[in-house]
């Protein structure tokens, strides 16, 4: 038996299926495209028949959107890399659920990165947690949970339990209410955009986002905010008035 990654491509456009297939052939010799499907139902039948390792799944398709795939399976024994032409709300759901996705037109670098990520990933069935979080986010249309990496693998946390997010260079540390902290290789801008609609979170400084529900006290003279977990977040002078207003309401 070969060690090749067995993959299926699901996309309603012929040219898109062709491009992805050709690119995969160019960048990697250990991926085998078993079949290509033009809609989700066909894709589901193929997945059940061929049991692939990896599925490239377009989101914008007639009848069923790509992410509706979860409703066809009790247990998903394959990984999905979503493909989408638009930077829309679904992308936020992928982000919070740590589900991989690629924007069209597909860049070679980005595709290579996704394949590498897939290969590195431990296959211990944590994917279910990601897809569940993704669907909850999509269905409720609000971001309330976040999948974070831990030493053991992954974990879902409620974003209301986040006390603060601290940036240091290219990564961020999320400090949770229960004292745990998680390191993610994202910048603060990423979380600021992700939580933009959530009024709990406030970007108070270049390197701090805080949860205003978890503020303990605030020092005007030092321009620092004490959080209930004992941390001291910095406060930018440009954000002072806004912060005072936000916490007083």
């Amino acid at each position, binding site marked *: 038996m070969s060690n090749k990654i067995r993959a299926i491509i699901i996309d309603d456009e012929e040219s898109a299926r062709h491009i992805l297939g050709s*690119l995969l052939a*160019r960048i990697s010799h250990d991926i085998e495209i078993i079949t290509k499907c033009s809609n989700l139902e066909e894709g589901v039948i193929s997945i059940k028949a061929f049991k692939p390792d990896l599925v490239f799944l377009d989101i914008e398709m007639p009848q069923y959107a790509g992410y509706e795939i979860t409703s066809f399976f009790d247990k998903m024994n394959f990984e999905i890399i979503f493909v989408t032409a638009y*930077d829309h709300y679904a992308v936020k759901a992928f982000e919070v659920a740590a589900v991989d996705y690629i924007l069209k*037109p*597909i*860049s*070679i*670098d*980005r595709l290579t990165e996704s394949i590498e990520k897939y290969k590195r990933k431990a296959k211990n069935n944590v994917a279910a947690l990601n897809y569940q979080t993704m669907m909850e986010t999509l269905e409720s249309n609000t971001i309330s949970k976040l999948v974070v990496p831990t030493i053991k693998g992954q974990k879902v946390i409620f974003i209301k339990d986040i006390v603060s997010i601290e940036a240091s260079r290219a990564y961020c540390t999320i400090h949770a209410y229960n004292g745990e902290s998680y390191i993610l290789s994202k910048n603060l*801008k990423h979380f600021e955009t992700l939580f933009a609609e959530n009024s709990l979170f406030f*970007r*108070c*400084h*270049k390197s701090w986002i805080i949860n205003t529900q978890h503020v303990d006290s605030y020092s005007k003279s030092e321009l620092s905010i004490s959080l209930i977990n004992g941390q001291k977040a910095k406060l*930018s002078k*440009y*954000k002072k*008035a*806004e912060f*005072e*207003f936000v916490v*007083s*309401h």
Partner: protein
Amino acid sequence: MRRYLLILIISASTSALISAQSIQKDSLLKKIKSSTDIEFFEEMVDYIPLYGGYNKFEKKELTETIKTRTAELNFELTSSKFAYQQSIENTLEGNYTKALDIVAHLLPIFKKHRSIYEVHCYNTTGGMLADLGDIDEGLKNMTMAIDLVENFKSNTKEYNYCVINNHLVLGNIYYGSDQIEKAKLNFLKADSIASLDSTLIREKCYSLLNLTNIDLSEGNYLESFKKSSQVKQIATSTKYSEILAYSHLKISQGYLKLKKKDSALLHADFAKQISEKYGFYRTVASAHRLKSKIHKQFGDFANATYEYEKYFNAKRAFDSKNTNAMSNYYTDLANKDAQERNELRIQQVKQNEDARLSKITGIVLFIMSIGLIGLWFWFQRRKLREEVKKERMDSLLVNSQLTAIRSQMNPHFTFNCLNSIQSLVLKQDVNGAYDYISKFALLVRSVLNQSNTEWIDVEEEISTLKLYLELEELRFDNDFHYHIADNDLNGFEIPPLIIQPFVENAIKHGLLHKKGLKNLTITFKQDEEFLHCTIIDNGIGRAKSSEIQERQQLKHMSFSTQSTNTRFTLMQKRLGTDKLGVTIEDIKTEEGGTKVHLTIPCKILF
């Protein structure tokens, strides 16, 4: 001229609230219709406008009923007080014509009874006239009110109340004519007097709301929020809907200053809904105006235009309702004047045979003054209307030009890139061509995202610039190097796509013609107000470049430079500073090259 937002002042006297706190409207109506007790009606004068248990419409009904009832009973003064209350209702609804009519009718009655309401009449008249654009006449009425109120010092409560209102109206007149310090002084005085007496809570609210305007113009957003939120709470509990609407307007303005679009829109909507519900049309117009401003600030010009239309229509409706207000007022004045002249004339006729001449002079003067006043008034209105129109045109023009320039830059990029892709295809460089297309797509995506906004995060702008340079890099044969020193460049916003045209110029005119190693360095320095960007190339320099252009007969100015220059000029106009702009110098070392220095406006986020 500063836009004129007069917060209308309600003159309703405040003495102790009567014990009948919880009387139902219907039973109160019954009592009104059956009572003959003047004491009871007098108590109602204060009770009805101030009691929070009735909404605006119930208050209206009660006021009308009492006015009629007291008139039937020949309680002239009491009835007039309720009539006065109706003029206030009209003022709030923007029917200045009617309100001024009522007040003019009531003034002699109050004068006859030596009632402090005479002060109220001058006060509201002054406010309305100033709001209609006649500051001088407004101030004249205010002088009357201020002089007159001194006769009523013995009744401390009523006196304080009138003095506060005088300060408020005066403050508003000064605010409207840009005399901010004087306005602030008056508002502060009103506030301090209103703080002395808890029954003057409504006046306290008006003082605070007016001070909010000052805070906003001075940049004390936090203070403005404190005040407007405090007023909002009071207004909610007391059901003073007009105050509630104003407080939402002020909160929204505060949010706008803090760049919170959604919250600003939300509160502007609250203000609009409340004022629509209770018919405060002036405030409805203000809310639309504010919404337009919010949309404009966030680059949503379609909605900004839409809201502006609505504001404009509302404003027009208000104007048309009140076209006659000023002329009626002047006719009134003229009539009184004529009446006095008449009396004088009769005396003179008795004494002097030459009265005939004076009569003719009187009539001629009267007609002339009416004519002159009318003419002046007509000019004044036309000027005001033109000003509104001009301001609207200005802002639309600037916005549309900025948008147009931004979107015109796209095709310029596009053609260059398509050329490069064609060449890669002809070279049969599949990976190269594919890579180029995906980068190009990314660039298009970010340019599209940016072309709608007025400001963009500097990191995003730099990454777009890098993408552009990566595309350019592919056109050269490995001898082009660029370096962007963007360490620690974050936390502020700049206008989008403003650096790229100059980088493009450096490449097209400087580096493209150069043989050997081509270097491009972009460095940044940031201070509180500006981002200073320096673009250095080691290209052939401006003199040689124009030589080549001349030889190739490409004398025309490059499109993007031209449009960017226009953009800098527009931004200067808009931000009111001449420090922005571009300077270009030749590098006089052996290697040569060109150095472009850009001073770009920036908005610091944190």
